[in-house]
């Protein structure tokens, strides 16, 4: 652990400010709380919001897992994990079940989360209405008045253009029947995992200086039309490595002749399943 920095990089007053914001966010599920976002040693868009929340939440006994697009071994995940190992000296893991705090970009782990786990999302654009209404003062009024008809204009446009709701990530949700929120750019495949989750879910947008929360066991509803209900992605393939037919699959081009491979985007989930398969094979051999 590097002693040149305060524990978990940020000074105590900043962490206190962040925690106050988080308490307010938990008290008003889905409401975007402004906070004084700090300069962090990584560029905007790389998770400055998430990293600040993680810094404010980490304790010496925490076990940290960081994923990027579901993977533990991508640049963003590796660097953020190493950063906190260095400035906070906390234990890190790649196993979802062992982690107490998980910072994520673009995915929710396949392994079901527990009550003693916290998920921190990196959010590029916290305002779901932004593409339709550029004025911040106006979007805040719309939130205050729960005037959300506008969001359906986007879904209407999707159906008119593509015949179905083509929004496949950052799919807008209504939190606790009150606030419209962006679930961050997770695939809509993960939206059902937000609903009634036992784990606390926190969202941080560093550039936009907003944080919000979905407390445990909160009702989270994905918007839809009566005759075009919410649907998640399905694949005709199973994971080429672990054979899972229930996880979110990435399509990987493996050569220059168009050969494609479908693999789990959650690397930990995939590795666990492969280990379990190997173990059960060995057991079967030992028994025979």
């Amino acid at each position, binding site marked *: 652990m590097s002693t040149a920095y305060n524990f978990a990089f940020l000074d105590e007053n900043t962490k206190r400010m962040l925690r106050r914001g988080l308490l307010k966010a938990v008290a008003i599920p889905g409401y975007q709380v402004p906070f004084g976002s700090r300069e962090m040693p990584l560029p905007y868009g790389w998770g400055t919001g998430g990293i600040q929340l993680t810094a404010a939440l980490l304790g010496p006994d925490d076990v940290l897992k960081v994923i990027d697009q579901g993977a533990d071994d991508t640049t963003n995940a590796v660097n953020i994990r190493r950063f906190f190992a260095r400035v906070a000296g906390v234990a890190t893991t790649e196993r979802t079940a062992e982690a107490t705090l998980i910072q994520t970009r673009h995915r929710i782990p396949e392994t079901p989360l527990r009550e003693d786990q916290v998920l921190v999302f990196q959010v590029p654009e916290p305002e779901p209405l932004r593409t339709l209404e550029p004025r911040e003062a106006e979007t805040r009024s719309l939130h205050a008045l729960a*005037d959300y008809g506008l969001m359906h*204009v986007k879904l*209407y446009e999707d159906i008119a*253009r593509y015949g179905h709701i083509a929004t496949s990530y950052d799919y807008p949700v209504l939190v606790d029947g009150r606030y419209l929120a962006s679930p961050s750019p997770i695939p809509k495949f993960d939206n059902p995992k937000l609903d009634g989750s036992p784990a606390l879910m926190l969202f941080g947008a560093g550039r936009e200086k907003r944080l919000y929360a979905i407390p445990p066991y909160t009702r989270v509803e994905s918007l839809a039309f009566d005759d075009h209900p919410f649907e998640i992605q399905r694949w005709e393939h199973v994971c080429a490595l672990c054979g899972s037919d229930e996880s979110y699959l990435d399509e990987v081009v493996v050569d220059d002749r168009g050969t494609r491979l479908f693999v789990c985007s959650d690397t930990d989930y995939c590795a666990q399943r492969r280990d379990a398969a190997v173990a059960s094979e060995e057991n079967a051999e030992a028994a025979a």
Partner: protein
Amino acid sequence: MSALLQVRGLSRRYGARIGCAEVSFDLHPGELLCIVGESGSGKSTLLNALAGRLAPDAGSLRYRQRDGSWLELGALDEANRRRLAREEWGFVTQNPRDGLRLDVSAGANVAERLMALGERNYAELRATASAWLERVEIDPARIDDAPGAFSGGMQQRLQIARTLVTRPRLVFMDEPTAGLDVSVQARILDLLRRLVTELDLAAVMVTHDLAVARLLAARTLVMQRGRVVESGLTDQILDDPQHPYTQLLVSSVLTT
């Protein structure tokens, strides 16, 4: 018959300058009232103050709700003002580009107000949008085109459809035909006259064109320098103007 909108002593100033001053009138259900006057006479200020888009400095504004009770608009909070604007009123702007969403399709433009009221069935929204496009003489086949690809006259008709789709009780119109060529104007006026009768709308329309007033309005207010100088039946005002300013307005209309 009791009024729908009751205006008493309404004033709005811009610093020392007068926007509109001490305007009083009643608007009855199903009535189309025209406000005429030259450029800068305070017509648009008055209209925006009536529609709640501009806070008046003095005067009272009362609106009769469906249940017959009076609503004091000056004391209305933002949430209820928006609800009223969404559910019971409509506003047609002079430039259709201000009133439309140019980056979403014509169908979504028409359906937006319905969705704001909680309509959540796509097929029904689309059927209603299509029916309204037909009603304002736009080919329903263009339902998925962006309004940016429409002509000025079509855009204005689209804005009218978008405003009237929720069947408001009261519509404010700010020179809806200005900036359009004469034949297009005639079509839109014809359309408005038909829709106002069909839907039994009450409307306040601002115009500088006396011909528009004569064609559409039963009653007319004439404004000059922020004040109403003459009011009454449109035909009476245009055929027998009493105020020197109205006489000037009427006599300066080109006749062929």
